[in-house]
């Protein structure tokens, strides 16, 4: 046969390049129940759809060439649910998937193609930081890091999973991504626990340094925590199903599951009769949206707000709701950050925003001020004003103070309707008399009562509607139909459902 030698060499080199860190390292991972980089890719992409880029790349150092197939990062193009994606899977069994100029070049190419050709990027993170000795010394730094740039202008959705020790590159891409899922047991941080222990001369627990609880509850950098690689990858696929492939198209419209118009008829069962009792708004949301379409982001962070992707009548929507079961729905600093990040995500990828309102005001106090509360309130207001996607608000019950504007009051939403339970005012009348006017109920009872009379105004939904403050008063059971209509009315016909993306360069963490 002609070219027999070349054909044989190609298949031998391919086999070597596909061998990752070798049989022993792969066996250790198998025994620990952890998928390797290629198994993760197989689980992620449509069968047979992966086309690898840079399979034959390897370390530029001659002494390391044999041990560094793909130079530790496996990259290429594939399909997920039939749609084109770029993928990067870190191979921890090869030099800890450490970063080099070469594998940076490879990642840079996939990023650049995904961005310029308009398809999502998926990153499966598990890496140490920069490779040593390659990056050591002035020459090492100049060569290794020459092309490193981290820009996020949200042209296409990026979805990331933190699947093991994730330092350096894997940490940077976790923070840059639009969706970030962390596996329990994984650790994401600037530097490894080992390095931190050396620097601080004490043992550092990776869970404290960058574990799932830290990132889902305290930093909010992780949207979701899962138990296995497979669950993480399933979550990425689910996230992508809500998103367009790129910022110049509307999200895909899905089929409406049968029976989706029924649950809202039972919505009154989720609500307490008394205005002093609280409820879990997640139960209410699930009655309104298409069956099984609820996908919450940052469920364990800033819990006084709920932010979730969902569908109504097959259209992707972003639901932002106050949750009275936490702090009575009072909005705290973390909730402000969570809301900003959610507005940026939805606005950048042409997803209309739906707000459900039941809030007694912002949480005040010294702790709130130490967390830069006024700055966070105004970040959110700025984001609301910059948002060019439709914002449709439904007021369930309370709507007080500045929070009224943050949740879409006045010019801050395109539509505002209220349930007949709604009540709106600036503050509680007894607070107005006691705190603002300085009249003490016990010291001056008559003056207090007179002042209180003046401060008590009609706070009802009908009062608001009479001056077009809310544009409609509806029965809670009408909420789904109301939203279906408003989503259709406010569809951006002139641009095919595409917004102006004024927040595409908003920071990724703050």
């Amino acid at each position, binding site marked *: 046969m002609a070219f027999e030698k070349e054909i044989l060499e190609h298949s031998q080199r391919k086999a070597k390049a596909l061998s990752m860190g070798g049989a022993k390292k792969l066996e250790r991972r198998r025994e620990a129940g952890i998928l390797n980089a290629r198994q993760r890719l197989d689980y992620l992409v449509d069968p047979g759809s992966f086309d690898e880029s840079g399979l034959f790349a390897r370390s530029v150092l001659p002494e390391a060439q044999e041990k560094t197939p793909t130079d530790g990062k496996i990259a290429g193009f594939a399909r997920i649910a039939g749609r084109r994606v770029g993928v990067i899977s870190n191979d921890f069994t090869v030099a800890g998937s450490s970063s080099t100029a070469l594998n940076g070049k490879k990642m840079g190419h996939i990023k650049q193609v995904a961005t310029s050709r308009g398809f999502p990027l998926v990153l499966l993170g598990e890496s140490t930081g920069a490779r040593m000795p390659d990056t050591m010394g002035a020459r090492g730094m100049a060569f290794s890091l020459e092309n490193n740039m981290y820009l996020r202008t949200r042209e296409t959705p990026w979805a990331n999973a933190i699947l093991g020790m994730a330092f350096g590159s894997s940490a940077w891409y976790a923070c840059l991504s639009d969706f970030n899922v962390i596996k329990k047991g994984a650790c994401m941080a600037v530097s490894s626990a080992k390095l931190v222990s050396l620097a601080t001369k004490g043992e550092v627990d990776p869970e404290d340094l960058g574990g799932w609880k830290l990132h889902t509850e305290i930093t909010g950098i992780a949207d979701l925590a899962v138990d296995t690689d497979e669950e993480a990858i399933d979550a990425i696929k689910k996230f992508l199903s809500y998103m367009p492939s790129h910022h110049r198209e509307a999200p895909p419209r899905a089929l409406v599951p049968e029976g989706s118009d029924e649950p809202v008829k039972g919505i009154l069962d989720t609500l307490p009769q008394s205005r002093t009792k*609280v409820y879990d708004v997640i139960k209410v949301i699930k009655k309104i949206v298409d069956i099984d379409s609820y996908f919450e982001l940052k469920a364990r962070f800033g819990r006084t707000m709920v932010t979730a992707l969902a569908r109504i009548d097959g259209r992707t929507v972003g639901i932002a709701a106050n949750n009275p*079961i936490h*702090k*009575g729905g*009072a909005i705290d600093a973390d909730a402000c950050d969570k809301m900003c990040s959610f507005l940026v995500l939805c606005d950048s990828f042409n997803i209309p925003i739906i707000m459900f309102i039941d809030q*007694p005001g912002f949480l005040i*106090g010294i702790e709130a001020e130490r967390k830069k509360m006024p700055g966070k309130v105004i970040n959110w207001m700025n984001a609301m004003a910059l948002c060019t996607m439709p914002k449709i608000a439904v007021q369930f019950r309370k709507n007080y103070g500045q929070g009224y504007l943050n949740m879409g009051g006045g010019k801050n939403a395109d539509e505002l309707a209220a349930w007949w339970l709604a009540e709106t005012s600036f503050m*509680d009348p007894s607070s107005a008399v006691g705190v603002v006017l300085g009249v003490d109920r016990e010291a001056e009872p008559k003056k207090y009562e007179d002042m209180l009379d003046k401060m008590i105004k009609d706070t009802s939904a009908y009062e608001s509607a009479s001056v077009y403050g809310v544009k409609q008063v509806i029965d809670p059971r009408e909420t789904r139909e109301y939203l279906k209509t408003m989503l259709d009315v406010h569809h951006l016909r002139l641009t095919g459902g595409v917004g102006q993306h004024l927040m595409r360069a908003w920071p990724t963490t703050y």
Partner: protein
Amino acid sequence: MAAVEVKADVTGSVWKIMTKVGEQVSEGDELVILESMKMEIPLMAPEAGTVKEILVKENDISNEGETVVILEV
């Protein structure tokens, strides 16, 4: 066995104690109801465990961040 401190997430007065020392609770069970901003706000168990200590009684004021119940998990 680890001790988990369940803290008040708002400043309020203790309206009702919903559990007792020694009771087995599941994640999400109501332990104490605080009254704040004219609402009854439940403090829920963050994970399953046994109630080891209840540090408040009805009508006490609980400040945000103060430990209200200790669970053994």
